C-alpha cells in the first residue's frame, strides 16, 4: 500500500507539535538554540535531525485594514518523491523505497558520502553529524546516545555522520501506527493515510475552500514536473510555493545525466583523437 502525508496548510496553527513529536519518536537532538528573528521560525529548515519544520510567513498590510492580513504556516517534510533524487544518487543502496512506497534511509548502510544531500531538489535530506559526545552536551538530549537503543551503533555510524530525513515513521507503520507528526497534529493539518484517498480528500478540500472564497492549490498531489512525478507527501497551499520555500520548478537531477555523459564522451573522444593526431603528426 502506498501511504503518505497530506499537509493542509489552511488548518495549520503553527504549534510545531509535529516537530517535537517527530524528534521525540525518532529520538533526535535539537539543532541548537539560535534565535533567528524570522517570525516564529527558529529551526529554520529541515535538517538531518529536524524532519518536520514549520514555516511561518507573515503577510501583514501596511495600512490600517486588517481584513487580508495573513500569517501562513506550513509544516514541511520530506516529499517522498515518486522519482527521488536522493535515492537515485545514493551509491550504497542505503536509500530504498519500502513497502509503503516511502523513501527510507537505512542508517546502518549509509556511509555519509553526502551525495544525496546535493541531489534533493527540495533541499530536504542532510547529513547528521552531531552524534558525538561533545555535541550531545551542546545540543542537550542527543537521545541516539541513549543506552536504551540497542542499534545506536549502527544508527550513529561514525563521527562522519549519516544522512537523515523523515522515514514516514517506517517503524511505526510496521506496527500499524500513524506517523508521530500526523498523530500529534492538534488540528489535523497533517493527515496520514492511503495516498489515493488523501489525493481525493485534497481535491475535495480545494473545491470546498473555493466555495468559501479561499484560493488554494495542491503542491505535489500530481506531477510536480522536472521528472520527479507526484509527491507522497503533498501540500495544500494558499500562496505561491516559493512563499513557503518550495521550488516552483524542481528538477530531478538524474535527468541531466544523459547530456552530461554524452558531452563528456564527445569531449573525451575529441581530445583522444586530437591527441592521436598530435602524437602521429609530431
Amino acid at each position, binding site marked *: 500500500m502506498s501511504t503518505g502525508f497530506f499537509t493542509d496548510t489552511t488548518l495549520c496553527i503553527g504549534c510545531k507539535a509535529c516537530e517535537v513529536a517527530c524528534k521525540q519518536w525518532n529520538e533526535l537532538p535539537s539543532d541548537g538554540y539560535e534565535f533567528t*528573528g524570522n517570525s516564529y521560525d*527558529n529551526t529554520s529548515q529541515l535538517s538531518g535531525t529536524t524532519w518536520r519544520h514549520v514555516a511561518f510567513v507573515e503577510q501583514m498590510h501596511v495600512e*490600517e*485594514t486588517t481584513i487580508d*492580513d495573513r500569517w501562513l504556516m506550513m509544516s514541511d517534510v520530506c516529499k517522498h518523491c515518486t522519482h527521488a533524487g536522493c535515492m537515485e544518487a545514493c551509491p550504497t543502496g542505503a536509500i530504498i523505497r519500502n513497502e509503503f512506497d516511502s523513501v527510507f534511509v537505512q542508517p546502518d548502510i549509509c556511509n555519509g558520502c553526502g551525495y544525496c544531500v546535493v541531489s534533493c531538489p527540495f533541499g530536504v535530506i542532510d547529513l547528521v553529524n552531531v552524534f558525538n559526545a561533545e555535541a550531545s552536551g551542546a545540543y542537550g538530549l542527543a537521545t541516539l546516545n541513549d543506552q536504551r537503543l540497542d542499534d545506536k551503533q549502527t544508527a550513529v555510524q561514525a563521527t562522519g555522520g549519516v544522512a537523515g530525513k523523515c522515514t514516514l515513521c517506517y517503524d511505526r507503520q510496521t506496527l500499524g501506527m500513524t506517523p508521530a507528526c500526523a498523530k500529534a497534529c492538534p488540528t489535523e493539518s497533517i493527515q496520514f493515510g492511503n495516498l489515493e484517498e488523501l489525493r481525493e480528500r485534497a481535491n475535495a478540500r480545494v473545491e470546498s475552500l473555493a466555495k468559501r472564497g479561499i484560493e488554494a492549490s495542491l503542491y505535489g498531489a500530481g506531477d510536480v514536473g522536472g521528472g520527479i512525478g507526484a509527491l507522497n507527501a503533498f501540500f495544500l497551499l494558499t500562496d505561491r510555493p516559493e512563499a513557503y520555500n518550495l521550488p516552483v520548478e524542481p528538477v530531478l537531477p538524474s535527468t541531466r545525466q544523459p547530456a552530461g555523459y554524452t558531452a563528456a564522451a564527445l569531449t573525451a573522444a575529441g581530445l583522444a583523437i586530437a591527441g592521436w593526431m598530435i602524437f602521429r603528426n609530431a
Partner: protein
Amino acid sequence: MPGLGTSFGRGGATVWVPDLAHADCILIEGSNFAEAHPVAFRFVMQAKERGATIIHVDPRFTRTSAMADVYAPIRSGTDIVFLGGIINHVLANESYFKEYVAAYTNAAHLVREDFVDTEDLHGLFSGWDEEKNGYDVATWDFERDEHGAVVNDPTLQHPRCVLNVMRGHFARYTPEMVEDVCGTPRASFLKIAELLAKNSGRERTTAFAYAVGWTQHTAGVQFIRTAAILQLLLGNIGRPGGGIMALRGHANIQGATDIATLYDLLPGYLAMPSALRNEQTLEQYLKSTTKPSGWWANTPKYVVSLLKAFYGDAATKDNDFCYDYLPQLTGDHSTLPTTMAMKDGNVKGYFVIGQNPGASSQNGELTRSAMERLDWLVNIDFYDNETVSFWKREGADPSKIATEVFFLPAATVVEKEGTMVQTSRLLQWHDKAIDPARDSHSDLWYFYDLGKRLKALYAGSNDPKDRPILDMTWEYDHDDPHERAKGEPSALRVLREINGFYTATGEQVKAFTDLADDGSTAAGGWIFTGVCPDEHTNHARSRSGDDSTSLNWGWAWPANRRTLYNRASADPDGKPWSERKKYVWWDEEKREWTGYDVPDFPKTKAPATPAIPGGKGLDAHSGADPFIMNVDGKGQLFVSGALKDGPLPAHYEPLQSVVRNPLYEQQSNPMLRQWDRPDNAYNKAVDAAYPYVLTTYRVTEMSGIMTRYVPWLAELQPAAFCEINPELAVEKGIKNGGWVTISTALGEMEARALVSGRLRPLRIAKGQRVHQIGIPYNYGSQVAFARGDSVGDLIALSMDPNVSIHESKSLTCNIRAGRRAPRHSGVVDADVPSSERTTMGQSSALGPEDLRDPAALTHHARANDGKDASHGMRQMGQGDRPSPEKGA
C-alpha cells in the same frame, strides 16, 4: 471566580471543551487560544469547518488571529469598552434574546433608589468613602419589599429595573468610543457586534473563550463580568455551543482552586475562617457563610464534613468539630502581600513547589531579594531554576545570604498517579508508568512524609496549638506492596477521603446531597463527592469517551455535569429552544429532566414548579430558575454587593497607562491595590518617559522551567524576545533579531527584537498613535537551554481588588536598541552581623557566572532595600466573602 461566580453561581468554565465544536460563532478575547491551548483549539477549528465564524480580538495578531475569520486589534486593557460597546449595541438594537433575558436573568429586578451610577459620579458608583478609600456597597442592592423579597418589573419598563439601568450605564460605550479608546476600527467593531447578535438566539449560539488576557488586570474580574452580562443578554449560557470557556493555564489550576491551596479558600469553595469577620465559632462562621436560598444553603453540611475529613474522631459535635483548629485570616495573605511581607523580613520559611517565582513572578528582583530574608527555602522541582538558585543570580553575593536552601527532586507526571482537574472541571486520573528517577518522589510522598515527621516531632505535646497536627488523620499507605515499601502514599485513598465517606461505616458517600452536618459524614471536598461513589469505583479513571458529552470519560464536578446551568438550554416550559440546539429538556412522561448531559437542576423538579417565597435552599427557586447556586436562581446582570469595585463593569485605565481615561474622570480602578514603595516603583499614568503599551503572554512552545530544559522545545523558542512593529523599530533604530532593552520605573530587561507587522500601531482618540510591545513571559536568565531576562522584572506589583491578581497584561514601558547594563542586585538585609558575613563568606569565591561586572562586588547600594519604606499598601481591606476567582 467572582467574574463568573457572581454572575452564574460557580467559579468554573461553563463549557465542556468539545462542545465548542457546536458553536455558530466563537469570540476569543483575552486569550491566545491556538497558542496556549492548541489541542482544545481543534474544536474551534471543527466549528469553523462546520461554518462557524471565529472572531479574535487581541492586541497582537497571533496564531489564533491567523485562524480567525475576523481579527480586530485592541489596545491592551480596554476590553470593558469593547464588550460594553457590544452590550450597548445589543440593547440599543433590541437584539438581545428577550425570552431568555426575561426568564433567566435578573433584568426585571429593581435597583435601589439611592443607587447612583458611574454616569453621574464621574466614574465612581454610589457609596464611595474618600476617607476609607473604599465603597459602602449598601446602595448596590435591589429594592426589596417589606419581607425582604426583591421587587420586580416583569414588563421591563421601570427605569430602575436592571435592564434599563444597564441601558443608561452602557449608553456611553458607542462605536465611536470603542474606536477612540480601544483603537479598534469602527467597521471591525460593528461587524463583530452584528456577528454576535446574528449568531445568538433560539437557533444559534455563540461561545466566548478567555484566559489570563482578561484576568491579569486591575479590573480583570469586571472584564469577565462584562462578558458574562453579554452572554446572558445573548442567551448563550447553559446552551450547547454557547457559554464562557475559561481557559486555565496549568494542568491542575482548576483542581488547585477546587481543592484549594489558596489562602482564602477551603476545599469546595468554602471560605477560610477570618478574624476580620466574626467567625470565631463554628456557629458564627456558618452564619457568616451560609446563604438562605440557593444551593449555598447547604454550607453547614460541607463544612462539618470537611472538618471530619481533616480531624476524624477528634472532631465531635461537642468541640465544634475542631473548628478552632483552623487558623484564621487576619489580612490578605495571598502571594503578592506575602512576598512583600517576606521582603520586610516577616516570613521565615517558604515552600515553593513546582513553581518558579524567581522567574515567573512580578517584580522579579523584589521576589528574589525577598528570599534572601528567609531562614529556609524548600523547593520541590525537576530542574535547577531561578527560585532555588536565587542566591547566585546576577549581581548577588552568596556570602551575604543566610538562607538555607533545600532542593527536593520531584517526580514527573508519568512517575506518579493521581487526579488533575482540567479546564472544563473534568477530573482525570493518571496511572503511574514508571518509578521516579533516583531520589525523586511525588509531591504527595513529600507532604505525607513531612506530615509524619511533624507528627513525630510534636508527639506528646500538650500545647493546644499542636493538637491539629496530632489529631489530623494521616493514614494513606498504599495498597500496592511495591509502593508501600517505598513509603508512597495512595493517591486513591486521598481521593476517596475528598469524595467523602460515612464516618460510622467507612462506606463511600455517593453524592453531595447525602452529606450531613451532624458528623455522620466526612468529605474533604464536597464538590467532588460522587467521583468515588463506592469502594471499587473511581470515576476519574473512567475511560470510555464518545462523540457527545462523554459522560463516561473522567468525571466533571458537580455531579458529572459537563455544561453548567444546562437547564437554560430549554425554554421556561422545559422544551428545547430549538431542535438544533436541543440539549437538556423536561420529559413530561417520565416527569424528569433528561438530555445529553446530566441536568444541572433537581432531576424531578418540573418547569412549572412555583418558587416558594422565603423558601430555604432551592425551594426559593421556581422550576424555571436555571442558576441554582444563586440566591434567586437567576443569572446576575447586576451583581449586588458581591464585588468590591462595582455592581456593573465600568472602564478604568490600567494602573500604568499611556492615556487618560476617556470615559470618566476616574483614571484607574478606585479599588485596585498597590504598594507605593521604592522597590516597587510604578510608571506614572501618561508618563512621557514610558510612552508605549507593554503586554505579556506565553508562546505555544514554552511554559517555563518545565520546557526550558527540553532541547526539543528550547530550540523552537530559544531566547527571550520582544515583539515590536516595524514603524517603531525604524524610529528607534532597532534591528530585527538584534538586542533591545525595555525599561520601566522598576528596571530594565534585555531581549531579542522580533520586528513584526503583527503588532499593528493603533490610532485612538484625537489621532493619537499607540505602539504596543509584546514580551513573552516564559524565560528566566539563570539556567536552562532557553533563557533570557524575565519580563516579570519590569512589572511592579499591583492587584485586582476582588481576587488579588496582578496586572501583567497592560503596562507601559520604553524601549531602546542595545543591551542592558549589568545588574547590581543581591542586596542583603542588615540582620546578618558583618563579622559573620566575612567569616562565612571567605572561603567561597564568586563563580564567574555570578557577576557579570566585577564592579558589582563593591556595589552595596540599596542596602536595607525597602526596609524603611512605608508599607504603603492601599486597599488592604478584607473581603467579606470568599473570592475564588483565579487566573492562569
